């Protein structure tokens, strides 16, 4: 059957509300039975020609009361179930958002951010049908048929027996339906999804298709793929519908059998009209909940698929960034990497470690520049100092204190990060500059903006510092973004900096003073710089060359040139 254990554990928390929903559902079924009783009563009176205003008063009143109760309970069921679903979704989203933040940027991997954001928003919403409809319906489908058969048994044993015989069909029905979710048919569905994805691709590649003059061919292809998709899907569905057909046939045939069987016994005087009619009214109700379950099944499976991804994320282990007892950041900021190794949890390549045996030293107040080819591990070294993750091997110390024992929040204020491309958050430019110091006053923001050379840009914008950025707002060009990142760092006034130097542009106006701004920012600070410009390397206190996760050379520009190693060869090649 289709139960996701961890999702059920979550639903447990809402058991009161879900039990209320199930209770209301049972109440609806019971009210339906009462209504059937009243209808049978009235019709029996009519047949006996004793239906008058007074004899009808009692069944009419009962029918009306049952109708009102039934409506209220039906509504109560929806209300309780949707509140349960709302609470569960809110709680899971809170946990998932918090957990994503705790996992940190490294655990998430580069490309799947879109999928991850989708899981946090739409993925969690997809649990709705499972929680608010499928789960309560599952309980009702198990309970109501048996309950009604028992009630029928009180009035007519033989009819109850007929209905009871069909009850084993219920698990059979479940198995059939469950079969639709089996591994095999899931594979079929993935195959279908691939056919279905063709269209999205055609749209994304539309410009390319246009350049190649292939639009007309593509329209034909979309039509044929869609047709193939239809045929393949219908092949799967025809089988899947058989389970519904089985249920439908069992329901109507057993109703028919009950009707004929009861009719014949009436004919021979072995049964009274009223119980016979009552049983006939109830027979279809035995199968109603199962039919509803079948309808809730498909949206339910989507919820289970979403839940699998959500719990997979929630179960990923977050790094332990802080070890109590903690101390405030030491004053000197003498940073050492001692034999540091690190591997990404979901590393794709065959190489096990991204970093191996890294030993480094950053003397207070000076800059250490890292250089090396793409993928060497420079960003990973920076990430460890920023405490996005903890080393798998060795340790990082500040004035001899292991990094993990330094208060995390205080470290974030001590060590600022300047990325190549800062992320723009929806909000004003001022808010974006204030990222690391949300309480900074306007005057301080203006100073930082001026220091980063962002002022001319801000002056050009319609609302100055209050111009809204992000979706629907103004965008910034690459060079402007870099200045924004620098402005953030100026405002943060952190004594330690990790700077991912922007790659060079060809715009001389832009280039001219970015270098000057950067050296002003680095001046007097303890800094780790991922360098892309020869100029930066020349002026850095020390240089470390990283290759394939190891430090291959360290020294000043002159020392490295003199030693005639890797660095000297690189510079010569320029």
């Amino acid at each position, binding site marked *: 059957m289709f139960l996701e254990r961890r999702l059920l554990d979550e639903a447990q928390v809402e058991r009161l509300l879900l039990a209320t929903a199930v209770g209301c559902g049972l109440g609806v079924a019971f009210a339906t039975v009462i209504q059937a009783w009243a209808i049978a009563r009235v019709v029996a009176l009519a047949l006996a020609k004793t239906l008058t205003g007074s004899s009808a008063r009692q069944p009419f009143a009962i029918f009306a009361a049952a109708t009102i109760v039934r409506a209220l309970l039906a509504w109560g069921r929806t209300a309780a179930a949707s509140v349960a679903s709302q609470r569960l979704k809110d709680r899971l989203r809170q946990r998932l958002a918090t957990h994503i933040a705790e996992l940190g940027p490294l655990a998430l991997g580069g490309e799947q951010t879109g999928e991850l954001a989708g899981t946090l928003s739409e993925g969690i919403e997809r649990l709705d049908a499972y929680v608010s409809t499928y789960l309560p319906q599952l309980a009702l489908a198990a309970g109501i048929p048996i309950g009604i058969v028992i009630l029928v048994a009180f009035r007519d044993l033989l009819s109850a027996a007929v209905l009871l015989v069909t009850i084993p069909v219920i698990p059979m029905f479940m198995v059939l339906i469950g079969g639709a979710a089996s591994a095999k048919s899931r594979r079929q569905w993935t195959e279908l999804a691939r056919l279905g994805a063709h269209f999205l691709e055609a749209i*994304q590649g539309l410009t390319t298709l246009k350049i190649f003059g292939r639009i007309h061919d593509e329209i034909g292809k979309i039509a044929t793929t869609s047709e193939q998709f239809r045929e393949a899907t219908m092949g799967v569905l025809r089988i899947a519908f058989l389970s519904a057909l089985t249920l439908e046939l069992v329901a109507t045939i057993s109703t028919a059998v009950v009707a004929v069987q009861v009719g014949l016994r009436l004919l021979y005087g072995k049964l009274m009209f009223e119980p016979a009619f009552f049983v006939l009214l109830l027979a279809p109700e035995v199968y109603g909940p199962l039919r509803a379950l079948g309808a809730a099944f498909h949206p339910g499976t989507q919820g289970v698929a979403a839940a699998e991804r959500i719990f997979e994320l929630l179960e990923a282990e977050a790094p332990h960034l802080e070890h109590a007892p903690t101390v405030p950041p030491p004053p000197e900021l003498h940073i050492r990497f001692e034999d540091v190794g690190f591997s990404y949890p979901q590393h794709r390549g065959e190489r096990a470690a991204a970093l191996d045996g890294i030993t480094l030293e950053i003397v207070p107040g000076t800059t250490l520049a890292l250089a090396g080819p793409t993928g060497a591990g420079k960003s990973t070294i920076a990430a460890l100092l920023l405490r996005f993750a903890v080393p798998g091997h060795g340790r990082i110390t500040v004035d001899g204190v292991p990094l993990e024992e330094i208060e995390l929040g205080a470290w974030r204020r001590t060590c600022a990060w300047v990325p190549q491309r800062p992320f723009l958050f929806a909000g004003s430019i001022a808010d974006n500059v204030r990222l690391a110091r949300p309480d900074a006053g306007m005057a301080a923001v203006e100073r930082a903006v001026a220091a980063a050379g962002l002022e001319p840009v801000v002056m050009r914008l319609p609302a100055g510092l209050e111009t809204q950025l992000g979706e629907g707002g103004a965008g910034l060009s690459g060079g402007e973004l870099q200045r924004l990142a620098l402005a953030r760092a100026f405002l943060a006034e952190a004594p330690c900096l990790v700077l991912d130097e922007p790659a060079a542009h060809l715009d001389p106006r832009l280039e001219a003073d970015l270098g000057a701004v950067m050296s002003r920012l680095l001046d007097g600070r303890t800094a780790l710089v991922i360098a892309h410009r020869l100029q930066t390397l020349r002026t850095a206190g020390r240089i470390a060359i990283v290759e394939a996760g190891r430090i291959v050379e360290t020294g000043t520009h002159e020392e490295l040139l003199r030693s005639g190693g890797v660095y000297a060869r690189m510079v010569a090649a320029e």
Partner: protein
Amino acid sequence: MRELRALLRLAKPLLPGIVLAVFLGTATVSAGVGLMAAAAWLIATASFHPPLGDLQMAIVAVRFFGVSRGAFRYAERVVTHSMTFRVLARLRVWFFERLAPLVPARTGGLYSGDLLARAVGDIESLEGFFVRVLAPPLTALVAGTALVIFFAFYGRAPALIEAGVFLAAGAGIPLAALALARRDGPLITGARAALGRASIELVQGLPDLVAAGRTRDAVTRAVGAGRRLTGALRRRAVRDGALEAAAGTLAQLGILAIFLAVLPAIRSGRLSGVGLAVIVLAALAGFEAIEPLPSAAASFREQRSAMARLLEITGANPAVTDPPIPLTIPAPWPADLPAIVMEHLRFTYPGAPAPALDGIDLDIAPGSAVAIVGASGAGKTTIIELLLRFWEGWEGRLELAGQDIRRYAADGVRAAFAVVSQRTHLFTATIRNNLLLARPGAANAELWHALEAAGLSDDVHAMPGGLETWIGEQGLALSGGQRQRLAIARAVLRDAPILLLDEPTTHLDTVTERQVLGALERIAAGRTTIMLTHRLTAMERYDTIVVLDRGRIAERGTHAELLAAHGLYRQMWDIAHREFTPA
């Protein structure tokens, strides 16, 4: 109701299918009604102990309806689903046909990727319109009418009451649902968008947030946006639940009303007890026809906004129109005419404050190699987009083979160019299929020859599947350099006289860049080549270098001339060579 009209227009060719679906739906409901009515008649009549023969007909009817209902339901499901996929196919073709002339000019902008992905989702949500939204009310109408006529045999009052129930529960309640939805539809859409944005900020902005110690605020924002959405959805679900309960209640009250209305008729003997039994059970079973209507209304309100979004995209006017009698580009290319002429070419993107190109003068001779260099945003790509006829509305002169570019059909113009750009789209398919795009029906030898020219044949030989290797989602199974060389192989197959290269090495490291440039050099021989770049690598090989600065030509000349001139090019060159890109 523009959306509804557009949907119905799309539905027209599917009319027979819809009629069949409605017929089968009505048949299913009628079989249900028939089963219960015949069973009621059977039991009620049997209570008078008639001879068995009097019941034979009813027994047969009960059995017949019992079996046929399941069969009808099955057939209805198969037909409606099959229809759904037909609709999907039509919607896709319809949308693609309308979108094609609009790309990229009318769908540009920062979020175009999202926009198109959302459109694909919208189309999927529309697939259910005809069978889940359009068919049920028609079924209810037909089945309801039949039921009312059936009731009319038993008296006017039951028929009127049943008609009232169908109107109130089948039309009134869904319409109420639609009216209420007008208010909260935008609310929910807005909340959904806000949640999506907050989630993206948290996930993609995470490095910035973590480093600044501000994750808590972003988590709070995302969770808050989520709460607003779940709250709005809950309110809607509770309200829909109330409406659904009300529909059921109306049907049941209808039964009570029938009881009350027929009391005098029963007493006077105008209506028999048997008749009453039949009416009541038929009314109960007939509710099946209106049951899906409230949820159909709920789907419709979502589909209406999906359709509105699609119409917003497809309603745009195409950026370019072909001339009534287009010229054809002469083949072979006339050697005496300049390949491309631009004179005082000016272009401003719609809505942009300043022109992206501001007076470009440039003659490109057939067979020459021209480099256009400039910082990002200088206007390089704009030149290419104008050449490919993605935009109209430029001023000045833009000629291809001696004729105004607007005198050719857009497809004809594009056939003159082979394009390799920084982000050439590769399709999730095999290497062969990606190559065939450029020359359908090409023989294996031609494909290998193109791969050879692009410097990719050794790589493909080494792959287990050879030409049949599946290159993953948009080519992600290949390395960056392999992807670009595959794009180059495609350009080779294209065999067009002019090669347009838009920063083909931007995302590559230095070593790979050299490989790709080498491949380009091989295929450029004998073709007119226009290279756009902001990386100043191997500039000596161009006949002319044009330096573009904010939409104007700042300098032009050969590499040696420009270096000697000590102008903008020289400054760029110095910056590029202060850059340190260790390989």
